[in-house]
């Protein structure tokens, strides 16, 4: 009969339509995201996870804190070896080399392209993109948290000793410290004497190389080259400032911490990360002024580089998980999420879209982020894309040991830098030898 035939045809058509619908949009997927923060940063990440889960009908992300950056990386290694790795993990900036060579990674750009959420690498701010991109401009991980280096100064203390402008050159910086010192201030400037600030950022802003092969971006044949040039000049200046009591080490302050020593007014100037502004504001320092990192007078100022972390997708998950991961990454990429994260943590917004939203509402924008973004926009050369070198965590410890010995008078600063460079190169040689036999990273899951 007509109606029953028609009903059968309708039923057949409907079932065909249902069967043809893409499986991805119907499949619910759970996956794990490992992140590496505590305190207010963890709270911001947890609320992003909760919002994503609430808004999504089909996906559920389980967000687990894993401790510090080092702990997160080694747990990822252990989990991967056991076949129990999470789908998404936050790895710090200097772990990028290890991740790229691990053979464990499903490149983010491939994933997003395949799942229908293509992300253009040029969306990202220049300094951030250049840090994480490969030689051919691909982003294999998604940048997550970023900060750069700026100058903090206590305006009231500076004007009290006759310094009217925020120092923009190291010469002016030294003059300001001398003025403060002459007026009896016990802490003209404070520093924690770490290599991210004193080597990586200073060399970036001065456009000077830290290592050959574009600071390691071009391959494992890179070797350190910082011992001559601007770094030597800077560190000799630092040694002089240390011995004259102008640049006080953070452990010698009452607060025992660089950011706190500036935030509670103990020290007048501090060269610190943009993220420190959150702490300065929380401590209620009203006279804080933020400016660009100083350079040497008469030299060209380049863009600074970044520090922070990025998100890596790992292989070995079931196929239904990856679409959900892609959706989560697209969610995090959204300017609103970036800005919420930036406001709560003091990290920089990552994409041009987010930056534009920020400039529309200037009063909601902290000084440090504005200055940091400006600093990243400055011109580039081959050497300010940050470093991509093996065993960087160990190298940083070596640099610190050598510099401490030099400051303690056990060797000259020049010798210390030469030693650090030689040690660093041995590490790089070994890193290269280790990965010579490794199969190259493939592009799929």
């Amino acid at each position, binding site marked *: 009969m007509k109606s029953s035939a028609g009903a059968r045809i309708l039923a057949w058509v409907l079932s065909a339509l249902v069967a043809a619908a893409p499986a991805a949009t119907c499949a619910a997927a759970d996956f794990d995201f490992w992140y590496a923060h505590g305190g207010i940063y963890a709270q911001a990440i947890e609320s992003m996870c909760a919002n994503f889960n609430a808004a999504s009908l089909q996906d559920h992300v389980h967000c687990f804190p894993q401790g510090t950056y*080092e702990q997160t*990386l*080694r747990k990822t*290694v252990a989990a*991967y*070896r056991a076949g129990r790795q999470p789908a998404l993990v936050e790895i710090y900036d200097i772990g990028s080399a*290890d991740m790229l*060579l*691990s*053979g*464990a990674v499903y490149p983010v750009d491939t994933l997003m392209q395949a799942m229908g959420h293509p992300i253009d690498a040029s969306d990202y701010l220049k300094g951030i993109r250049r840090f994480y991109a490969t030689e051919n401009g691909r982003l294999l991980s998604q940048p997550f948290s970023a900060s750069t280096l700026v100058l903090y100064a206590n305006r009231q203390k500076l004007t009290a000793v006759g310094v009217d402008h925020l120092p923009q050159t190291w010469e002016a910086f030294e003059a300001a410290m001398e003025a403060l010192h002459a007026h009896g201030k016990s802490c003209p400037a404070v520093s924690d004497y770490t290599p991210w600030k004193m080597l990586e950022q200073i060399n970036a802003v001065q456009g000077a190389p830290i290592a050959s092969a574009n600071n390691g971006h071009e391959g494992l044949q890179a070797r350190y080259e910082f011992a001559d040039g601007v770094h030597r000049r800077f560190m000799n200046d630092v040694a002089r400032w240390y011995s004259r009591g102008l640049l006080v*080490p953070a*452990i*010698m*302050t*009452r607060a*025992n911490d660089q950011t706190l020593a500036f935030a509670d007014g103990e020290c007048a100037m501090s060269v610190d990360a943009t993220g420190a502004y959150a702490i300065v504001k929380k401590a209620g320092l009203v006279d804080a002024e933020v400016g660009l990192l100083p350079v040497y007078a008469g030299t060209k100022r380049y863009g600074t580089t970044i520090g922070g972390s990025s998100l890596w997708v790992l292989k070995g998950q079931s196929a239904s998980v990856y679409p959900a991961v892609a959706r989560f990454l697209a969610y995090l990429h959204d300017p609103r999420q970036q800005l919420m994260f930036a406001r709560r943590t003091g990290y920089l917004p990552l994409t041009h879209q987010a930056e534009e939203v920020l400039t529309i509402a200037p009063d909601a924008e902290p000084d440090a982020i504005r200055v940091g973004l400006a600093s990243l926009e400055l011109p580039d050369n081959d050497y300010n894309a940050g470093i991509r070198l093996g*065993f960087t*965590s*160990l190298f940083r*410890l*070596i640099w*610190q*040991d*050598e510099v*401490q*010995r030099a*400051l*303690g008078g*056990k060797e000259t600063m020049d010798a210390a830098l030469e030693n650090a460079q030689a*040690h660093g190169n*041995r590490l790089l040689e*070994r890193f290269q*030898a*280790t*990965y*010579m*036999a*490794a*199969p190259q990273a493939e592009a799929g899951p």
Partner: protein
Amino acid sequence: MKSSARFHGHWIPLALGLPQLALITLFFYWPTLKAFWWSLHLVCPFGNCSTFVGLGNYTRELTDSSFYAALRTTALFAAFGVSLSIVVALFLAAMVELHRRTGGLFRYLLIWPYAVAGSVLGVILKVAASPSIGPLGYLNTLWPGFWQPYLNGTQSMLMVVFAFAWTQIPFNFIVFVAALRAIPAEYLAAAAIDGAGPVRRFIDIQLPMLKPQLFFLATINLIESFTNSFAIVDTMTQGGPGGATNILAYKIYTDGFIGLDLSGSSALSMMLMLLVFAACFVQFFVFERRARQDG
């Protein structure tokens, strides 16, 4: 033990010993084997490569100045830490034995430090040694810039040696007290009648009879200085300043867990194992030989 006192059978001793052996195989032999394997290869942390390099890792460490720096630091730390803990414990034990009446109270109290974890001691001493808020900061008002343990390598070594000795003294003290008690009172009485004072008696009678304990404690303390000092170093100085307190155990931890250098830290582990083994070997055979000579 006479064979008539022993039981027959194979299955029961096997069953009784198996749990312990299984645990030891899993958490001792297997990791040691792994470390040995890794020390002979260049290993990618994620497991996607491993290249056999024979003794390459060892020769690299042995030609690395930072290895020798860590070795020197470990040797200094061990030498001073062990001597200090043994000398002070021996001194206190001798004092307590001389003053039997009130000795009981002192014996009871002097053991309490054993309950304090290295990390807790580290936290307390870190604050106590702080140049800005600790009592030693007063030294800086007399001689500005004098007490800077976080910038001065010698002072930071002093701090960790003191902390380490403090944790070892209770154990040594107990052993010495028991050993001194075991010396027959007649020997000491006879020597006193002959006119020997307490110092003479100590040197001539008590000290020689303590030789086994001295050897034993030296070995135990030495092994502890290689290994159990980690908590103190990690909470107080993190190997600094300038690597002045970067003992081998700390370097192994840093290389392996922070640098993800499985090959290098395994080679170091193997070398540290050899050191520990050598220390035990010396104690065992030197002591055994002396015991056979003396007894």
